[in-house]
């Protein structure tokens, strides 16, 4: 018996190291996928540059024309796509985790509605002419923050966070904002209407470098903060009370993560408009591929969201060159079809 024991322990560790190897492999594959997507995205578009030349161009900063196009036009847009894609996917994952509901996504809670409302008001009042183009994303921020504040006051402030009431408050606010949005659209002039409609379809064409920086910093910051809560999210899969019994401060976890998810969504919507489906679809597909352990699911969803939006944006801006499609069209079409195909392929039902 004593001879057998050490062998058993080591075999136990072996199975776990293979588990870790599996996790590392998945993450490395995803990172490789992201690098490939970025390279293709750099190569395709206004000036077709061969994928093999890209590293050379960046190293030697030659030829100047190509370097300028890559670094000033294509790269910032790709960075924005990575940040927004990662942020939306992360936000969806967090919300599905704290609500224990697979149908929740960043837009269910009315945060994007608030941002859209702010932007539409700004467009209707033509703030971009009087204040400058920065007015639009700022109006978006303001709208999103207002909604976060309302949800906080209505359901988060109480000592004991009631998840169902939070969800209901969010859904109701979402209805109110979309009605107000329709009201504004009905009242606005036809020339502004085009801007509003186009904005609501989402676009990653953002000229301001520091707005891109804000988006990138928020996104990475959100990932870092959330990664402190992976064990709490795992425990929340058991339910709120069982998680508390394991020493997890569930109320604090839900509050902090809700605010992180709101900020991620608010910033994304303000900078890039309403880009649907990333927050719903990517966490689902990742759950299927990697399982529901948040220690793996969190980074995997972030990278996959970045890949998904970068690829969608590349398609959106190259498919009808020299014109561009709104990226929301591509994410919805591509995502919806992929979703249905996966659903009928293995009809197992979603697992949280």
């Amino acid at each position, binding site marked *: 018996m004593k001879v057998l024991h050490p062998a058993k322990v080591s075999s*136990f560790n072996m199975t776990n190291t293979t588990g870790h190897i599996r996790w590392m492999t998945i993450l490395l594959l995803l990172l490789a996928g992201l690098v490939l997507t970025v390279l293709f995205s750099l190569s395709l578009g206004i000036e077709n540059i061969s994928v093999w030349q890209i590293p050379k161009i960046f190293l030697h900063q030659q030829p100047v024309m190509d370097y300028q196009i890559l670094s000033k036009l294509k790269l910032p847009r790709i960075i924005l796509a990575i940040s927004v894609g990662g942020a939306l996917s992360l936000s969806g994952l967090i919300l599905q985790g704290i609500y224990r509901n697979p149908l929740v996504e960043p837009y269910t809670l009315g945060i994007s509605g608030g941002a859209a409302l702010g932007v539409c008001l700004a467009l209707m009042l033509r703030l971009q002419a009087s204040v400058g183009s920065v007015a639009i994303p700022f109006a978006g921020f303001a709208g999103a923050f207002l909604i976060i504040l309302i949800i906080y006051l209505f359901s988060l402030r109480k000592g004991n966070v009631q998840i169902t009431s939070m969800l209901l408050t969010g859904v109701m606010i979402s209805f109110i904002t979309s009605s107000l949005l329709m009201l504004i659209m009905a009242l606005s002039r036809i020339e502004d209407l085009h801007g509003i409609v186009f904005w609501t379809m989402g676009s990653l064409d953002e000229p301001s470098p520091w707005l891109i920086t804000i988006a990138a910093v928020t996104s990475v910051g959100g990932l870092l903060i959330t990664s402190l809560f992976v064990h709490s999210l795992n425990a929340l899969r058991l339910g709120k009370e069982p998680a508390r019994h394991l020493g997890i401060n569930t109320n604090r976890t839900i509050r902090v993560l809700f605010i992180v998810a709101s900020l991620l969504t608010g910033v994304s919507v303000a900078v890039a408009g309403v880009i649907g489906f990333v927050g719903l679809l990517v966490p689902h597909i990742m759950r299927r591929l990697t399982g529901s352990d948040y220690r793996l699911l969190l980074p995997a969803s972030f990278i996959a969201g970045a890949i998904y939006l970068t690829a969608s944006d590349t398609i959106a801006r190259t498919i009808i060159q020299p014109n561009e499609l709104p990226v929301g069209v591509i994410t919805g079409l591509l995502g919806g079809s992929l979703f249905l195909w996966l659903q009928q392929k293995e009809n197992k039902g979603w697992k949280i």
Partner: protein
Amino acid sequence: MEDINNAVPVLQLKKLTAGYGNAFRLKDITLTIRQGDFTGIIGPNGAGKTTLLKCIAGDLPACAEAFQLAGKPFNRMHLKERARHMAVVTQKNDIGFITVEDYVMMGRLPYRSLLSGLSCVENKQLAEKYMKKSGVWAYRHQAVNELSGGEQQLVAITRALVQEPDLLLLDEPTAHLDIAHQVQILDFIQQLNEELNLAVLMVVHDLNLAAEYCTQLLLMQNGEVCAEGTPGEVLTRHQVKEAYKTDVTITENPLSGRPFVFPVSRNATNNRNTKKKIPHQTENKTIYEKITAH
């Protein structure tokens, strides 16, 4: 060591009062649990058994003159510290798609610091030890929600053990289980109680299982403790009849010597009162004849 353990009870409640909204459901509960105690909370539906368990688990706020876990005031303890002293196994374990191994490892969460992981060697060995002890080791790679009710209960108890608590709280651990699994689960809990000197507090509906396994019983009625003591002291015909408003007959289990409670049906009472012993078959026949006569 023995002396210290006896001096500081694992759980001490003095005049605990609690309720939902404005209605009080628990009044002046006083309770002391020491290491090695195996206490059962019994009582009719709505007596406040589960409410009391929720208060002790920290799910429901309560007022008390004293409420101490391992000698420390409960309200001022951190959730993590509570979880190191007390493990809770609830009745409905709505565990999602998690492997048994991962779920059992979650029992180490109270011992984790902010930045450290869960899967260090000590944690794994501890999980392995208790999974082997409870016999869930064989299906450690299966998802918990794919197991049977009895297996899920064992897995939940294993997770609780990995928390290395002083006190194990169980809410009807044998509900919806067949008699073989009831005995299996309670035998296991009894084994832990004896081997690890673990204090057990469980809500239990079945009076006979309570009598068979618990060393101390708490009979509740309308949010108050109406009797406490050994099974023999609590399960008397008078007290059970008073609490449950139902007549029973109590004899002794011939093997264990513990009390055994027989329910008494209305027919049986009537027959006893009229001192007539009609065989079952005949009685049915007479009823049948009565019906056909009409």
